[in-house]
């Protein structure tokens, strides 16, 4: 992936795919798309396609992992071998997937009333079918819907949005190529009604002011995704079941 002479931003502030700096890619969320799972959701964000299933709350297995005072949340983020742009990804979990599974779990936990179901567990399984940047935040957006679909009691939904730096400017919702060739990536998740940040990571180089600005920009984008989450959940209860088209 040589950092070739691709300009990520035109002179009038348009990105490679024509978006403005503050603009999300096209997105779509569906809830209740799987029959077996207790809750499920599917998200498309640009070319990203991600499926999430939630099983729980249920008895913890193995039993000694049960927590006396709250639900045990487990999360597995994984990319299908053919979901990536380059060579086939090995099916065994990479270190990247292990870390992302952890931070997604910790991005979802603040929104769940974990103490309402002590000694139970809930599993969140995330499979990326097609990846084009910002998969972890898109996964969080879908996972929150799947949790709600499973009837897990929640304080708020969680919305994930990435923000990055391309050609020195902050830009919302990095695509794959922007992530690779840009100067920084900051995935953020927040509870939109409470305005609390539940995931925050960064690499690259950001000044204090850029971070302050990023937190603001992300909030605006999150509201749009939040509305789509709510629409998906509402539709879920009006027309059962949802047959998702992976298009």
């Amino acid at each position, binding site marked *: 992936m040589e950092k070739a002479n691709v300009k990520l931003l035109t002179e009038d502030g348009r990105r490679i795919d024509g978006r403005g700096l503050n603009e999300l890619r096209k997105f779509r969320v569906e809830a209740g798309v*799987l*029959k*077996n*799972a207790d809750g499920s959701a599917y998200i498309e964000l640009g*070319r990203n*396609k991600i*499926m*999430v*299933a939630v*099983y729980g709350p249920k008895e913890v297995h193995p039993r000694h992992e049960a927590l006396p005072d709250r639900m045990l949340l487990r999360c*597995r983020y*994984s990319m*299908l*071998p*053919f*979901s*990536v*742009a380059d*060579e*086939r990804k090995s*099916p*065994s979990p990479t270190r990247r997937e292990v870390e992302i599974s952890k931070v997604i779990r910790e991005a979802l936990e603040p929104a769940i009333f974990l103490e309402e179901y002590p000694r139970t567990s809930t*599993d969140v*399984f*995330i*499979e990326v*079918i*097609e*990846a*084009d940047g910002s998969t972890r935040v898109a996964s969080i957006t879908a996972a929150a819907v799947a949790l709600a679909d499973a009837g897990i009691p929640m304080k708020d939904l969680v919305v994930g949005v990435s923000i990055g730096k391309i050609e020195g400017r902050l830009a919302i919702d990095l695509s794959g190529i922007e992530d690779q060739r840009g100067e920084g990536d900051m995935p953020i998740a927040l509870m939109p009604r409470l305005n609390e940040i539940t995931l925050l990571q960064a690499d690259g180089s950001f000044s204090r002011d850029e971070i302050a600005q990023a937190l603001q920009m992300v909030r605006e984008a999150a509201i749009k995704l939040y509305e789509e989450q709510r629409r998906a959940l509402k539709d879920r209860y009006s027309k059962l079941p949802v047959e998702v*088209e*992976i*298009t």
Partner: protein
Amino acid sequence: MSEKVYTIIPAPRRETIRSMIKRGERVDGRGPDQYRELKVDTGIAGNADGSAKVSLGHTKVVAGVKVSLGQPYPDAPAAGVLIVHAELIPLASPIFEPGPPDENDVELARVIDRGLRSASAIKLEDMSVIPGKQVWRVFVDIYPIDHDGNFIDASGLAAMAALLNTRVPKLSVTPDGTVTRAEEKVPLPINDIPVFVTFAKIGDVLVVDPCYEEELVMDARVTFAITKSGNVCAIQKGGRGSFTPEEILKALDTAQRLAPELCAQLEAAAHRV
């Protein structure tokens, strides 16, 4: 090495299903030899070189193909390489557990692999670039996303649909061995389109394309992979029960009768692209 202990079905429900089957009825209203509706979507994963999603009733499987240039196997230096991988991920069912592939994953992948290979579904001998050095390597990855029985057939159909959907760059090789990829993409050299047809034996009755509840109460199962010509290119018996020779042959007759329609649907889906 031990069987996966599947969810136990409550005894009364078990008895209900078994007596329905005995009377020639099935839980979802089908006849014993009736296959569920097959739905095939192709090109569903844009980063794959070929992909498909197959639905058999509520059973849903995605398959993706990635091709890359690499070394041939030492025992077939002038042939492409086919590698089939399947993983029964826990997203698809509460009975699947996370972790490295177990015997069920391995069996599934190997049965699909044998069916594709025995039928020469892909002409691997046409996929050598520089014999002994560079050949196309074709990875087929199969993932269920919702499990309502008969994963073998759904996986085999999804794998074949993804292969039919696959496009690879046209290559040119100069005499000194430099390989150039053209922009133009071409399909894989498809030679045959095997389809998989599975039967569950429940009591003395064989039913085709079992759903999940039928699998929970079945005694045994048998799968046939059938080529376009109607020949059998793979068989796999599974489960704790047995079959009489007559049962095997009767099931095979049904499989041969159903196969052309399944194959036609795969071809139709491929042409819809």
